[in-house]
């Protein structure tokens, strides 16, 4: 595509009153020799848009620059199709609404923003999508329990092929052992049949679901659209090619032998919820020791859960499960005495109706701390402190005690796998601090052929969950989505919905990959990183720092990129000391040219310049919002957006300081336990990289405080002017950058 730039400068919304339009146009036409430059007071109006469209159609303009409002607005009217490169210069929110009108410095700021964009266009090309030749449109579902079966069916019903892998000899998981399940339907008062047979039959009836039982995954190699999976079935192996993966291996009950303090092991009549379920499934519930029909049963809630010595979390499903099992007993013998010892009854939402049903059937709920369970020669006794009566209480002559022993995700076993070999190898990359990667546990489920480890990174307690409330399927391994109780503690009703949600994400990833587009959060981005391998020094920073484990390594330490795993954050580009990684529309030289295009006044003009790199996810909208609120900030700053602070390459700091900027401010997202960075570790990585810059600056006799990073969120729009002004003030005290003018 030929590059013909058209610049359209809008004077509407007060821009024309605050700025010298002719001088702005000269920047485009004289300095940058832009062939087409037009001014209008209302470019977003019908006639204004027509002017631009006409230039595209008749004048062969291919790169459109609109200098006016923020890209947050009028995105729909300024849509000229995928073959036109569109850049927006935000004169309104970022200049006119935050600066003095009709002022020399405001004008300089506006002109610099136009320069930045025109400089950007020099290095910018329309990305060509990375399209796989034979993108697999099949989904592998690992785990054939309720969540896995549901995912498989949902994917199949949407018209995609499924490979369903189950390690046991038949499908069903816990449903196979269940007598009934908690109600899924209104009025939510009675246990329902498991529906297992119907589900299995439906799966068997789908020609597009291939079921492997007694099978495990030996290896998952490749990437979205082209995963090569080796399945192990008995002594033999089978290869399958799939486009996306759903991890639905579920959870297992917490190990009851650790619950000796609640009587487990002391008597065969102390059982887990699952054991009780199996007894119920057999028919009349009889106590294990002598087969006597039960007349008096107690449930102990939070047996292991909500206990710092065992499972710190709430297992989310046990209250409802115990209510269901209490109803089994009452259904069998309405005269039976049933007690539930609990901390809080967590029958959320419509399960309140289920709880009410159990109460109306006479199940006794006792808020108590259980202090002991004893076998008094056949019968059992529970001793507890009744929290409502404020006194010790006991239930004796119990036939059975059921422990609601909670759940542990199948991913939470064995050892953390990261850091085994990479630590010493990493020494050359980062002698000092390195961010701690999320733990990856060798749980022998997916056995990913990924440089960063064989399974999904765990968020907490071994659950490979998303850290984002708004994006529960945001995964750190592109194209692999966890669903059901392996993802977070949940009940069956939630697991069914969760399985369908993960199914959507899996087929969505296939569709996006097939087009060569990125998935969330840069959905639709067609750019991808290109590696100039001849200059690679095998330092491994890119392979280690990629938040998505997208880059593998060969035996010599060369990076092996997997473009379909990539989420386009640019962390690899920021990490690379040799600057060999670039995107068609985002690269180290491009950013370098952008910052170098900014005019730096001579020292005696006393006009300092501070460069701001701002994360486009949170900091840029916050800056826009400062404009919308007409909050004023320093006229000395120039803002350049970045995809993520993780993409910050240190050479930009060097470039900025040698260009004569007096300071550099970095605005990124929150890091730490409650991180907000959508690429996980962007600001953390930037912080670590900056720690190295400060030594260099000190050596050059420059104050290292001239470069400063801080974290803001989208709601900090009121703070951001203060952050900027205070930084500029601090820089002012240091005086001008002595390298100015060299």
């Amino acid at each position, binding site marked *: 595509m030929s590059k013909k730039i058209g610049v359209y400068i809008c004077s*509407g*919304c007060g821009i024309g009153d605050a700025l010298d339009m002719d001088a702005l146009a000269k920047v485009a036409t004289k300095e940058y020799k832009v062939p087409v430059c037009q001014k209008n*007071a*209302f470019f*977003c*109006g019908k006639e204004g848009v027509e002017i631009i469209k006409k230039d595209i159609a008749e004048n062969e303009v291919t790169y459109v620059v609109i200098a006016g*409002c923020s*890209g*947050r*607005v009028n995105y729909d009217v300024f849509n000229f199709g995928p073959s036109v490169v569109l850049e927006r210069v935000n004169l309104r929110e970022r200049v006119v609404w935050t600066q003095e009108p009709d002022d020399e410095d405001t004008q300089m700021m506006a002109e610099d923003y136009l320069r930045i964009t025109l400089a950007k266009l020099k290095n910018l090309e329309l990305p060509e999508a990375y399209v796989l030749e034979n993108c697999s449109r099949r989904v592998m579902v690992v785990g054939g329990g309720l969540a896995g079966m549901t995912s498989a069916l*949902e994917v199949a019903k949407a*018209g995609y092929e499924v490979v369903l892998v189950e390690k046991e000899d038949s499908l069903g998981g816990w449903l196979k052992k269940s007598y009934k399940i908690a109600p899924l339907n*209104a*009025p939510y008062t009675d246990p329902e049949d498991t529906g297992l047979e119907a589900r299995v039959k439906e799966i068997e009836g789908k020609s597009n679901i291939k079921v492997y039982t007694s099978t495990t995954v030996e290896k998952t190699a490749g990437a979205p659209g082209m995963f090569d999976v080796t399945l192990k079935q008995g002594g033999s192996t089978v290869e399958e090619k799939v486009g996306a993966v759903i991890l639905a291996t579920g959870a297992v009950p917490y190990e009851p032998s650790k619950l000796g303090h609640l009587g487990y092991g002391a008597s065969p009549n102390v059982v887990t919820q699952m054991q009780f379920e199996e007894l119920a499934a057999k028919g009349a519930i009889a106590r294990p020791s002598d087969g006597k029909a039960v007349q008096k049963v107690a449930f102990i809630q939070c047996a292991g*859960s909500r206990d710092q010595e065992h499972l*710190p*979390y*709430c297992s*989310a499903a046990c209250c409802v499960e115990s209510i269901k099992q209490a109803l089994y007993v009452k259904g069998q013998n309405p005269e039976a005495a049933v007690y539930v010892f609990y901390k*809080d*009854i967590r*029958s*959320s*939402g*419509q*399960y*309140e*109706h289920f709880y009410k049903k159990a109460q109306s059937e006479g199940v006794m709920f006792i808020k108590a701390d259980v202090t002991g369970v004893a076998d008094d020669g056949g019968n059992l006794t529970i001793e507890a402190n009744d*929290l*409502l009566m*404020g006194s010790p209480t006991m239930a004796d002559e119990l036939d059975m005690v059921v422990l609601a022993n909670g759940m542990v995700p199948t991913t939470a076993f064995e050892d953390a796998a990261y850091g085994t070999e990479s630590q010493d190898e990493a020494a050359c990359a980062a002698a000092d601090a390195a961010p701690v990667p999320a733990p990856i546990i060798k749980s022998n489920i997916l056995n990913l052929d990924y440089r960063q480890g064989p399974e999904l990174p765990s968020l907490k307690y071994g659950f490979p*969950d998303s*850290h*984002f*409330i*708004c*994006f*529960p*399927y945001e995964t750190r391994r592109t194209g692999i989505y966890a669903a059901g109780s392996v993802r*977070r*503690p*949940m009940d069956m009703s939630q697991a069914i*919905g*969760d*399985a*369908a*949600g993960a199914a*959507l994400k899996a*087929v*969505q990833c296939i569709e*996006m990959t097939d087009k060569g587009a990125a*998935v*969330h*959060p840069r959905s*639709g981005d067609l750019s991808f990183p290109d590696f100039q391998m001849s200059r690679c020094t095998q330092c491994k920073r890119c392979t280690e720092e990629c938040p998505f484990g997208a880059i593998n390594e060969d035996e010599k330490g060369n990076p092996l990129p997997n473009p379909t795993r990539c989420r386009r954050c640019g962390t690899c580009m920021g990490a690379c000391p040799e600057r060999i990684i670039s995107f068609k529309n985002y690269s180290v030289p491009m950013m370098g040219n952008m910052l170098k295009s900014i005019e730096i006044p001579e020292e005696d003009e006393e006009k300092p310049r501070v460069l701001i790199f701002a994360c486009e996810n*949170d900091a840029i*909208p916050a800056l826009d919002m400062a404009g919308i609120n007409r909050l004023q900030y320093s006229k000395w700053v120039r803002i350049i957006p970045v995809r993520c602070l993780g993409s910050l390459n240190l050479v930009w700091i060097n470039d900025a300081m040698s260009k004569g900027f007096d300071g550099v401010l970095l605005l990124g997202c929150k890091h730490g336990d409650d991180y*907000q960075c959508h690429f996980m570790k962007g600001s953390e990585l930037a912080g670590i990289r900056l720690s190295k810059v400060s030594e260099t600056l000190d050596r050059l006799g420059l104050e290292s405080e001239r470069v400063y990073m801080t974290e803001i*969120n989208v*709601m900090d729009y009121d703070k951001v002017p203060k952050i900027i002004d205070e930084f500029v003030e601090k820089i002012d005290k240091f005086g001008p950058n002595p390298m100015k003018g060299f």
Partner: protein
Amino acid sequence: MNMVNKSILVVGGGISGLTAAIEAAEVGFEVFIVEKNPYLGGKVTQINQYFPKLCPPNCGLEINFRRIRSNPAVKFFTMAEVESVSGQEGNFDVTVKINPRYVNENCTACGKCAEVCPAQRANDFNYGLDKTKAAYLPHQFAFPVKYVIDAGACQEGCSKCVEACQYNAIEPDMQPKTMRLNVGSIVWATGWKPYDAEKLSYYGFGRYPNVITNVIMERLAAKNGPTGGKILRPSDGKEIKSIAFVQCAGSRDENHLHACSSVCCMASLKQATYVREQYPDAQIYIYYIDIRARGKHEDFFIKVQNETNITLVKGKAGEILEDPATGQLVIVAEDQLKQELTEQKFDLVVLATGMQPATAETKVPAEMTYDEDGYVAAGIPGICAAGCTKKPQDVAAAVADATAAALRAIQSVRGQS
């Protein structure tokens, strides 16, 4: 010949509707969102922070709006309501009424109209706690970024905004419009509304100015709220020394909402952190039946207990009394753990009012079934419910549910061909 329509209608542009629409569009389907407010985002736009991360909802909304901006497959209509639905899976005819905004697509959001507007209106975004001009931007992060005119609040004969607008964006004669859409499947995601706290007469909401609801508390704590984020007593604007949260205000109650609303426990724990941040010494009480911090939310429950020094009172608040002279409130409750009747004074009381599904009042214009509280119990082929029209749930769960609904909508249109 293939008569099947492959496009999807999503009714409701809150977090569930937005999610269902964007997720389906990113699979490659054309999607229409019909939203009754003049902006997208629904209830979460009014929330200060999400539990348990205490992060701002606008962060995720901005990302979702960016996804819409970059995906022409998503089309939306604001100030719009579905009037009727006919046809069947694969081929629904839907009538949509678009109420007049009095501002057309020429609006550049320059703000001149609001600047010159002489009239005011109660700001419903802040539950009436402050006012906006009659020409207004619904809130700072409003998307689409277009002004609205509340014609009912305009001064008679005034045309100042029309004169001030340089872009001919204001149309005082704009009329309601009716539009027809033909779609293959429908996701119903009209969400919820806070239960009417005035129905809980023993708590005095509406009579005692210092009894507020949890949704109002979100606005009081929000930077872009009526107090600039400072939690102050509505009666006199004074700072507070003591505050109580009354759980299950309407929920788990035979006379009101039968179900548990499932989010209020976590919401009150979260709001306790708002108070603690502003008032290190304030007394914070939570009156509860059960604290339902399910799953990993237990961590947040423990953290709040450790860090904010709250007093948890097991027992439902029976009654709230007011001292009219001081605006002080007294909660009468049985402390079940101490087994005594307590009377405790507070400066401010927050009622953790529960969720009522929008479908309790405005049903889906199709043969759907509902449970006793009005949640959609079952859809019909081609129409499914998502989010809080289906069950009371928090944002993360509603988003997961809406993602599932997107798939079901796709199955509906794909399965027909």
